[in-house]
Structures are given as structure tokens and as C-alpha cells.
């Protein structure tokens, strides 16, 4: 019996101690008519060898294509030390650190994580993680509404240059509580969210504005102008940021005159493999004055009976297990293990390591854009300064080109057609520090081939 240690002798002794004739008798409170039939739809069990052979075959089927997709998930190199330690049983198989004395490892790691994420974003306090960047943004919107008591509209401005998946998550979740998300246009030339695009709300009540930096197009926003505009009218500023970029970019805490009020993002670039989209972790930081409105767990440093320092979950009165229907959020299980990965990655990289990664990303993606826009039929969509992604415009539909690239082992980018039809055939491409000059040359020559063949065909 896989993962069940009972011998026949154990079972009889245990039943005797219980005073039950059989295991089945233990289910005698369940109405007989409800008892399940054998689970015909589940295949027979496999032993570990078989299951590993199966999974290797499945994995092989997907292969390891050369990938130039970003769009919210970035292929960074992860030092071997990160997952060697993350997968240690003591981190991997521990529960939430409710019993603080038996969980100091996890608790101290969270405290260090909070410190690092606060430092990266330039904010005062951090929670212990949320599900992902998208849900973190939705939670930030809810938090902004709770925090900005002066504003009654529950209106959140969201630039169209914000990750469309994040916008979708806001719409399907935070709007359940009556929040109104309103689109802000981007400048078709620069790809930025212009201050002028906000004019329509100059005289409207706005609870908060979301600023994504770099935005979904990879373009850098004029964060100071947008932040100051919002603060001037009493709106809060929610920053949605890429943590790698923060090694080089002004952190949310320093945006504009007063700094952003809440900063969120997806921690994936910090040590989480792409893994088909998860598990990653959402991070959230804010000002100390707003900490009681923050969702999610928070760890504090305190002392024990003997006055020695120690760590414990704190401000739990914000959370569902205490406050129930009045909690700041329903979140319970978060992304703890990925938070550990993020902490290890960030500790290994340090500020210098991370900024080198960021600069390499910029250099590589610049090289990529140059190589691809040198091809006939490919040009850059926007003029704004970029971090490590860019929108390219093709002279023909994107989908078949991507498919042809895939056939040749290259994942060429993310087709923007669905979310930004107004751009025409547009492709979002990305290169990180892991893509070499050779990789880029291979992409360029393969794309040239494909474009040419199609043209001559």
C-alpha cells in the first residue's frame, strides 16, 4: 500500500482498540446510499519507476525550445544553491509557522524576505507573499479602497499598458466587491502612459491609480509625473513592478515627491523557474501607516520568555483565521516555499549581482531588437526607453510566424493580437541574461528564413 505503513497485525490491533469490527465500520455514520462506487475513472496505480518513466516521456514531448517569450514570466538563471536548499525537507514539508517555537527557520526567513523586498521596492513594510503578481495587484486595489477613506468612488485607473492578464484578474476578482477599474490609454508612439491620457479624470474622484514599471510593452513609464498627478488629487499610487528591474530603476518608494503607496509584483524573476506559470509568488509592500490594511501574513521580530530574540507571525487580527468575514483578505496558504527561493536568490545575488543581471537583460534584449528589426518586414512599435522587452510589428499575421518558429524549436514571443488588436500584427519579445548572442543570431536567421520562404511561396 503506497505511503500507508499499516501491517495486517496493526490493523487488527487498532480496530480492537477502537472496538470496531472493520475499517468499513468506521464509516457507519455515512448514509449507505451515499457510499461511493469504486473509482472506475482512475487508472490503476503506478510504482515510482513507472511514474517517473511516464513523466520523463511527457517532459521529453515538450522539449526545451529556445525561448524569447516574457510577458510576465522571465527565464533567469537560478543558482544551484537556491533549489538545493529550498527542497530541503525542513522547508519543503513544513506547515505554516503557527507554532513559532518550532518554526523559527521559516519565520526568520520570512523576516529576511520582508526586509529584502522592502529594500528592493524602497518601501517600509512587506508581507510574507501573496499568490502571484496578478492577484497581488487585485489585493492592492482592494487595500487601496480600504485605505483611501476619503475617496468614495472605488474607482481604480488602470493603464492599458498594464499586463492584460493582471487586468483580467482585477476585473474578475476585485470587481466582486464593487471596485471599478477604468482603462487609461497609452501613447501609440512611445508606448508609454502619458500624463495627458489622465486628463479625463482631472476632476473626478479616483481612489487609486496603477502604474506598471516597466509596462507590459517593456517600455518605461514616467512614474514621477503619474505619481504626482495621483497624489495631487488624493488618489493612492499602486506600483506594479518587476523586481529584477529595481536593481537599476528608481524604486516605487521614491516615485514622484511622496513615493508610491503600495508596491506589488510577481517575484518569479527572483529564483522561481518558469514552470508553466507557477508556483511563483506575489509580493506586496507599503507604508508602515497602512500596514493594518495589508492582506497576507506578516512576521515580526520579538523576544521570548528569556528575552532572546525570536520571530513570530504578527498582526494576525487582519487575517481570516481571526477576523473571519471582516479580514483584509481571505488568503490563508500563500506561496511560502517560493518566498524562500526568492530570499535565497536575492541573498546570493545581492545588489551588485542583481544589477548585473538587469544590465545584461537590457543589453541582450537591445541586441535582440536590433537583430530582428534589421530583417525586412520587422520594425519596432514604440520609441520609449525599454527594460528587457519590446513590441515588434510584423508585415503579416503573427500566429503562423510563431508557429513556424515553434516547429523549428524557437518560442518567438507573445502575440499581442488578442489584447491589442489596434497594434496590428504585433509581437512582444524578451531576452534575459540567459540568452546568448548565438541564440539571438539563431532566432534572427530562422525568422529571416521563415519570412523569406513565406514571401517567395
Amino acid at each position, binding site marked *: 500500500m*503506497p*505511503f500507508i505503513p*499499516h501491517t495486517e497485525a496493526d490493523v487488527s490491533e*487498532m*480496530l480492537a482498540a*477502537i472496538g470496531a469490527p472493520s475499517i468499513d465500520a468506521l*464509516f457507519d*455514520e*455515512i448514509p449507505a446510499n*451515499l457510499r*461511493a462506487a469504486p*473509482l472506475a475513472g*482512475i*487508472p490503476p496505480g*503506478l510504482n515510482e519507476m513507472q511514474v517517473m518513466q*511516464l*513523466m*520523463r516521456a511527457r517532459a521529453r514531448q*515538450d522539449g526545451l525550445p529556445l525561448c524569447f517569450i516574457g510577458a*510576465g*514570466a522571465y527565464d533567469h538563471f537560478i*543558482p544551484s544553491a537556491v533549489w538545493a536548499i529550498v527542497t*530541503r525537507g*525542513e522547508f*519543503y514539508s513544513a506547515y505554516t*509557522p503557527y507554532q513559532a517555537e*518550532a518554526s523559527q*527557520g521559516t519565520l*526568520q526567513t520570512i523576516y*529576511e524576505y520582508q*526586509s529584502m523586498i522592502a*529594500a528592493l521596492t524602497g518601501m517600509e*513594510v512587506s508581507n510574507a507573499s501573496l499568490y*502571484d503578481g496578478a*492577484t497581488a495587484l487585485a489585493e492592492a486595489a482592494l487595500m487601496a479602497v480600504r485605505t483611501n477613506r476619503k475617496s468614495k468612488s472605488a474607482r481604480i485607473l488602470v493603464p492599458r499598458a498594464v499586463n492584460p492578464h493582471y487586468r483580467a484578474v482585477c*476585473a474578475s*476578482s476585485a470587481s466582486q466587491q464593487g471596485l471599478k477599474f477604468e482603462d487609461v490609454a497609452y501613447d501609440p508612439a512611445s508606448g508609454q502612459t502619458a500624463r495627458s491620457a489622465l486628463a479625463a479624470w482631472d476632476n473626478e474622484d479616483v481612489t487609486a491609480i496603477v502604474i506598471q514599471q516597466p509596462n507590459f510593452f517593456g517600455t518605461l513609464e514616467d512614474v514621477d509625473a503619474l505619481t504626482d498627478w495621483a497624489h495631487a488629487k488624493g488618489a493612492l499610487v499602486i506600483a506594479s513592478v518587476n523586481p529584477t528591474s529595481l536593481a537599476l530603476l528608481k524604486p516605487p518608494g521614491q516615485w514622484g515627491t511622496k513615493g508610491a503607496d503600495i508596491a506589488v509584483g510577481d517575484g518569479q524573476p527572483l529564483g522561481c523557474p*518558469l514552470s508553466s*506559470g507557477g508556483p511563483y509568488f506575489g509580493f506586496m509592500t507599503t507604508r508602515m501607516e497602512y500596514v493594518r490594511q495589508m492582506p497576507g501574513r506578516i512576521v*515580526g521580530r*520579538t523576544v521570548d520568555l528569556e528575552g*532572546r530574540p525570536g520571530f513570530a507571525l*504578527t*498582526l494576525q487580527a487582519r487575517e*481570516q*483565521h481571526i477576523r473571519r468575514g*471582516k479580514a483584509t483578505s481571505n488568503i*490563508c*496558504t*500563500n506561496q511560502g516555499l*517560493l518566498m524562500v527561493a526568492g530570499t*535565497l536568490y536575492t*541573498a*546570493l545575488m*545581492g*545588489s*551588485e549581482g542583481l544589477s548585473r543581471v538587469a544590465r*545584461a537583460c537590457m543589453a541582450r534584449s*537591445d541586441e535582440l531588437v536590433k537583430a530582428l528589426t534589421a530583417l525586412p518586414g520587422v520594425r519596432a512599435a514604440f520609441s520609449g526607453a525599454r527594460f528587457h522587452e519590446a513590441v515588434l510589428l510584423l508585415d503579416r499575421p503573427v500566429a503562423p510566424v510563431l*508557429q513556424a518558429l515553434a516547429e523549428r524549436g524557437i518560442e518567438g514571443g507573445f502575440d499581442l493580437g488578442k489584447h491589442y488588436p489596434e497594434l496590428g500584427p504585433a509581437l512582444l519579445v524578451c531576452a534575459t541574461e540567459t540568452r546568448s548572442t548565438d541564440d539571438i543570431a539563431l532566432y534572427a536567421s530562422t525568422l529571416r528564413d521563415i519570412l523569406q520562404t513565406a514571401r517567395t511561396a
Partner: protein
Amino acid sequence: MSTSIREPLIFDYSRTGRGATAQWVAEEAAPALPAALRRVTPPALPAASELAVVRHYTRLSQLNFSIDTHFYPLGSCTMKYNPKACNSAALLPEFTGRHPLASEKHSQGFLRCMHELQEMLQEVTGMQSVSLSPMAGAHGEFAGVAMIRAYHLARGDVDRNEIIVPQAAHGTNPATATMCGCVVREISVNADGDVNIDELRAAVGPRTAGIMLTNPSTLGVFERRIEEVARLVHEAGGLLYYDGANLNAILGKVRPGDMGFDVIHMNLHKTFSTPHGGGGPGAGAVGVGPRLVPFLPVPLVGVEKRAGGEHFRLLTEADRPQSIGRLTGFMGNAGVLLRAYVYMRMLGREGMSRVGEYATLNSNYLFARLQKAGFEAAYPERRASHEFILTLKRLAAERGVTAMDVAKRLLDYGFHAPTTYFPLLVPECLLIEPTETESKETLDAFVTAMSEILREAAEKPEQLKGAPFTMPVRRLDDVRAARELDLVHR
């Protein structure tokens, strides 16, 4: 003559000019950033050597209890063994390297696993369709209640915004209802642990969106009148939500779909044995009966027959126009889902129903032995399900020893504490869930420790207040933690 060695903060290993330089990629001449966008002072991250980082976090890890090191009878949490194979499979380079937006060509292996997982979860729950995207139990609850609301709205039944929740429910249930813009109506529980049917009858009506239940309930007992509950709620026009955190108890024995539930979330990180990671990640797949199928969150994994075999692809809003939409940046905690998939394939059909059987056997055995050892059951007349509740109210009254004291002292005996003070309605309670993966000897050793503690409580109750004694720290000052907030290192 003991020398206590404490682990400092990672920042204490930091020195300007130091670094794990094997991780530093070459300096690159990157395009210049506009001055106004540039960071001026580098973030105050640790500058430590690779050895320091490895040693620090290895040592920190050793300060934790975990399944791999300790028995963890944590009620409602299903802390069972996490097979290592699940981790190995999920970390195969093609899986960790797969971009969530990769082409279908490079996704068939992964998507096939996910599609089969959807189908297996349908089978074990008796539901018609499953979406894998929620990232934890509470997230699944959110999806479920949002679907219930969407269902009513789609029928023009716009005023149904009340969610009925029994008193004993997990905090996420009412919190979720609020997140979904609903109003929570609590109903009480009888002395025998079953829901108070009269209160339920009084509560249902034209504003009832639905009821959230877990069965077996968080009191560790099976809701015997579940069919009646279902009938009442359905007749009132509401839907039934099953909080699947306790699915381990009934796997292969009863199916929520057969009990009349319209929607369920499953905690794959409990029942399907993905690790809890010191707080997460989880996966809170949702399953639905016929009424709610159109509303499932996207993406779902669909299959088409094609020449050359089955072809899998992600279904999105375009395919599912009535969907409540997207709840995650991509498609949820895929790596967790892979682990659950591997676990289910290893267990297989027979293994699946053994889970419920042996989880219940272990629980009832421990229940019987602990009662014999002198502990008081909260629901002595009832069968334990996969978990059960002890109440120490007598001990607290007579000796001043609380559930918290017993929990802390257990740590000294090498056992993780049971869940304490949940559910809130049972005074001084311990909610104990051994799971099926623990052996009789371990349960026996736990009984011995509990008996010892009972003896200590009789002989030197004041000393128990000081427990634990052997952990890296003694009992922590929670009040100070909340009052003098020290949340980041400076």
C-alpha cells in the same frame, strides 16, 4: 555548561565589497536609462558569500519542524508524507523550463498531464468539470462563490447575496463570502456536531446564494443529515459549496457530487499530498456540477481528437464566454498540480480509497487511545472522521493548564502540536489529524507523550506554562511583536 548558538540575520554576514561572485554575470554596456528613472542608491540587500548564504539558510532550515522530521498531527491540515517522486517529476528540466505562454507544440506533454488531472479530480469528487487555476484553498473558495453568484446573476436572480456558513467553519469561508461581495449568515451547530437544521431552515430564503460546508465538518464528524441540508438549500434556490479541505477523510468513500454539492474546491496541498512549503504554495482546484460548468474560471485544459491522436490546448474566455474569468496570471500553480498528478497516478484507483480508510482508522485509533488515556472528547458520541477534537476545558479549569500549554509541551517531546483553538466554538480544543501515512508506533508514541504531559499537568502544572524548553526559543512575546512592530531589518 551549555553554550547556546544562535543564527544571526543574513544581513549580519554582509560586508561592503563582498558577494557570491560566482553568480555575477559579466558587466554589460546596457543602453542608458533616462536619468529620472534611474535608481540612485542601490537596494540594501545582503552582500554575502555563497558559503555564508548556504550555511545560513541550511542552519535556519534546521530550526523547523517538518513532515520529513516530525509527526505533525495538525487538524484540518492533512500533513501527510510528500513523496519525493512528485518533486523530482515536477522539477524535470522540461517542466521547470516551460514558459506558461509556450506554443501548443511545446506543451502537449504538460497539458496531457493537466487534462488527466482534471478528469481524475472529477472522478474522485463526482463533479462534472474541474478548473485547476486557483492557487490555494481560499482561492478555490473565491472561485466557487464567484461562480455561485454568476449563476444566480445569469438567471436574473440578482438579489441572492447571502452565504450561509456554519459556526464551526474555517475562517476562509466567511472571508471568502465577503471577498465576493456577499453577506455571511452564520448558523449554529448542535451539541452532537451536526448543523442545526432548524436554524438552517430559518436562514434560507430568496436571498440565499448558497451554503458553504465541509463534510466531515471541521468538528471532525460527518454531517449525517447532509441530504436534508442539500434539499433545504436547493429548494430555497441556493447552491451548495463543499470546502474540500477535509476530502482526505472520504476519498473513495463518498463523493461530494453524490451528496448534492454543486461546487467544491480541493486542497491539493492536503489531500493530494503536495508539500506545504512552510506556508504554501497550494493548489485549490474547483470542481462543479452541471449548473456551474459554464462559469468555471479560465484557463481550462481542453482536448480535441486530431489525426495522430489527441491534441490539448488551453481554453480561454473566447471558448467559455460565461466564465467568471481569469483568477491567476497564467494557469495557477502548475508545479503543484504536477506534484498532485504524480501522487494520484502512484496511488491509482485502489490507493485512492485506501487514503480515506486509513486516515479514518488512524484517527479513530488515536481518538480511542487518547480518551482512554484521560483526555476528554468534544464529541464523545461520534465517530471520528480523519480528525477529532479534544477539549481541555476541565484541565484548564482545574489545573490552569491550557490547550496552548499542552501544545507547546508536545514540541519538547518531538511532536508538532495539533491545531489549537480552532474551531473556535470548542473551548480549549486540540484538533488532531494523524493522516494515513503515519504508523501505529508513531501514534502510540504520541499517546505516550500526551499521557506524560497529563501527568506533568497533575504534578507540576505551573512548569508547563514555561514550555517549550528545548526549542531554539522559549515562548515568544506575541503582544510585543504586535505592539512594537519590527517587520524589517534596518
